[in-house]
């Protein structure tokens, strides 16, 4: 364990901690753009700078390890001025269209500018002017809004490990992109959207067929319904409509999803959904009430059991339904119908 002082308060933390982790342990929140708990500290965006007594310059809290007797100030005047300067440089070349930006309300740049009272860049430098890459069916990249924190590049290369995106060019012209300036569709990208989930601003954004403000949605944590990995995700819900999905940083997926988990919820309100029971009448499926459906099925089951015995009945339950539903279905057939003819497509 290491003893240090943050903002005049003594604290004891694990040897392996960074200043950022130590501050977090004390409940002090520091601004971060590039930081990702799952990756080693990077220090790219520098917004997390703090003052360390005895150090010649401000240090990035996400990369500097704690040491015995360290004295740290996280919100001293020089720290605050440095953070303001970083934010000014960022918005200097950032389209200030927060009124219509879909990320508003969940944008770290917006939040920190609010927190640090930064209204405008104040320099009259060159503006970025990149075309939007909307070649991917699920998301788009607006490089004009990109703050080059590099989270997307690191998530793609180090966690998703696809390596579709990287930095192109250098200096003022540095931008996130596909090698040889191709677009997403022409890349090795597998549309997992993990870079999109990681973007702290409105640069990598899901395409959406409904407009919503971030503060209009509630989130519901659940389990992906596609493959057996069972990724944990949060559905974003506006009214009675699912409008987005975000990965959760927990077992087993630790903040990753694939294209189906991230974007595959969109079948939910498809007009083809079955909305009412159907019963075959004169060879055609016709709408019916639940009562009629239950009566018909129950009548048929009792009749067949009576005439041919319980083993003339069977069920295929479903690897897509819940445990509770599978349990009840086998109970229905075993306990009520009286047969063990119960199976599902485990083998397919």
């Amino acid at each position, binding site marked *: 364990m290491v003893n240090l002082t943050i903002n005049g308060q003594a604290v004891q933390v694990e040897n392996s901690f960074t200043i950022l982790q130590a501050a977090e342990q004390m409940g002090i929140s520091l601004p971060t753009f590039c930081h990702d708990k799952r990756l080693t500290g990077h220090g790219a965006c520098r917004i997390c700078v703090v003052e360390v007594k005895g150090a010649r310059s401000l240090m990035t809290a996400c990369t500097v390890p704690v040491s015995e007797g360290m004295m740290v100030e996280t919100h001293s005047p020089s720290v605050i001025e440095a953070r303001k300067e970083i934010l000014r440089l960022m918005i200097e070349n950032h389209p200030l269209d927060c009124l219509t930006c879909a990320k508003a309300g969940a944008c770290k740049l917006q939040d920190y500018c609010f927190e640090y009272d930064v209204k405008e860049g104040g320099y009259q430098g060159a503006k970025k002017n990149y075309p939007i890459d909307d070649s991917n069916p699920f998301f788009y990249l607006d490089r004009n809004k990109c703050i080059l924190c590099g989270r997307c590049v690191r998530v793609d290369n180090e966690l998703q490990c696809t390596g579709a995106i990287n930095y192109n060019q250098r200096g003022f012209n540095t931008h996130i992109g596909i090698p040889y300036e191709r677009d997403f569709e022409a890349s090795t990208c597998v549309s997992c959207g993990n870079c999109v989930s990681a973007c702290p601003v409105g640069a990598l954004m899901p395409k959406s067929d409904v407009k919503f403000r971030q503060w209009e949605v509630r989130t519901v944590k659940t389990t992906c319904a596609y493959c057996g990995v069972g990724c944990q995700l949060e559905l974003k819900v506006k009214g009675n409509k699912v409008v987005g999905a975000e990965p959760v940083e927990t077992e087993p997926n630790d903040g990753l999803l*694939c294209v189906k988990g991230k974007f595959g919820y969109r079948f939910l309100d498809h007009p083809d959904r079955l909305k009412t029971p159907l019963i075959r009448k004169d060879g055609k*499926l016709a709408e019916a009430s639940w009562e009629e459906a239950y009566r018909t099925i129950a009548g048929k089951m009792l009749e067949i059991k009576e005439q041919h015995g319980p083993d003339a009945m069977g069920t295929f339950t*479903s690897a897509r339904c819940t445990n509770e*539903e599978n349990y009840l279905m086998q*109970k229905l057939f075993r306990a009520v119908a009286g047969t063990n*003819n119960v199976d599902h497509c485990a*083998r397919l």
Partner: protein
Amino acid sequence: MTNSINELIDADTILIIGSNTTENHPVIGAKIRQAIGKGAKLIVAEPREIELAKEADVFLQIRPGSNVALLNGMMHVILAEGWQDKAFIEERTEGFETLERVVKAYTPERAAQLCGVKAEDIVAAARLYAKADKASIIYCMGITQHSNGVGNVMSVSNLAMLCGQLGKASSGVNPLRGQNNVQGACDMGALPATLPGYQPVSKPEVIAKFEQAWNTRLSAKAGLTVPEMMDAACRGDIKFLYIMGENPMVSDPDTAHVRHALTHTDFLVVQDIFLTETAELADVVLPAAAFAEKDGTFSNTERRVQRVRKAVEAPGSAKPDWVIIMELMNALGYKSMYRDPSEIFDEIASLTPSYAGMSYERLEECGIQWPCPDKAHPGTSYLHKGAFSRGKGLFKGVEHQEPVEPTDEQYPFALTTGRVLYHYHTRTMTKRVKGLEAKVPESYLEISPSAAAELGVKDGDMLKVSSRRGEISIKAKVTDRVSGNVVFIPFHFAEAAANVLTNSALDPNCKTPELKVCAVAVKK
């Protein structure tokens, strides 16, 4: 899986056999790549050059249906070199001699010939696996969907036991479950011979326990599997069939046979979220709620029981499946009353020893891996620590078997089937997601450049593919992902459906159909 998903990241060697992991279990695919980034060695054994094959230290492009030959070859090398874990074999296993006897005949040269790979690659794979401190095997349908699927599975565990690569973190045998809740459906007794928790119907004390809990009489006679029910329906022995959330008209082998079976029942009930190809044949169709419209739990491939939560209301008068079944029980005169799924879960926990310590309250923050026998138990991240459930691990020598339907002059191509990243199972959901449909809008046949050249076929040409069971028209995709006479079709599509062609020949032991290989003819 005997291990947890995140244990894979710390494995020293990963052997993937019969799993196209990055497309079928994408997030596990990402974790495997993270492991490679940390220095893990990768062996891939697959008939197709899947994405991960390019990152493998050893890639064995085996003939479809030659898994056992490969694994026996590797074990032959391991024994010849003395790389086996003698202490593990001595303390934890029995039947070693039978294995020794069988694998003796599988020299790397012979195995290489049966598999269509190089002998030195088999040796290299054997070394990487046996010499690793922690080695994990990952497999999927490429192992199970064969007429000798059980033999394949046994061979995999033979290899793991031989090298003592079991019962440790990051070291085990890891079958990946295809659909989200295959694990849970099996756990819940959605199997003909076992009640919840794999308690066999053949045991009188099991039957007595459930009869008391359910207040009814139960049959002790094992039921029929899906393919057996299909056959029985064709014969007129199954008269009433109730299908919940499955689409055998697309997912099952030999579509003509499935149609015949389903239309031969007296009465077919299908409960689903869309009017599937199967629902179209039903006498009654019941509209169900989708995953985001109900509460419950799924059990993932690492045995982790996790909450499913309701986010929105189901459309129209659609109801959660559990509500439908409960109401039907009552209509049949069997009193059944659950206010919400947590009460069903409590009943499950009271009857299923491996779930006994779980409740919705405990699952609230994070899922729990079974076995979790009591309320204080944290769950189990890997199985077989110290001992196997049956006591000693049993070696069983397995002989290589040619596929039931070998290629011949009339049907010279070996067809194998599988999935693609952008679709899921029979596409009922994914075809209704615009972007996913745009990514892979139609079925295709992967054919090797050499075979295509011989037939004069260009990329994009329409082909006629036929087997002894049917014929389809399908677009050619000329690619070196496949080689020689191996061709591949993703099975998702009802149009140009792979399963019109596939063989319903079953493994005699586990009744899994041989979907992974059949003989076909390809014509322009």
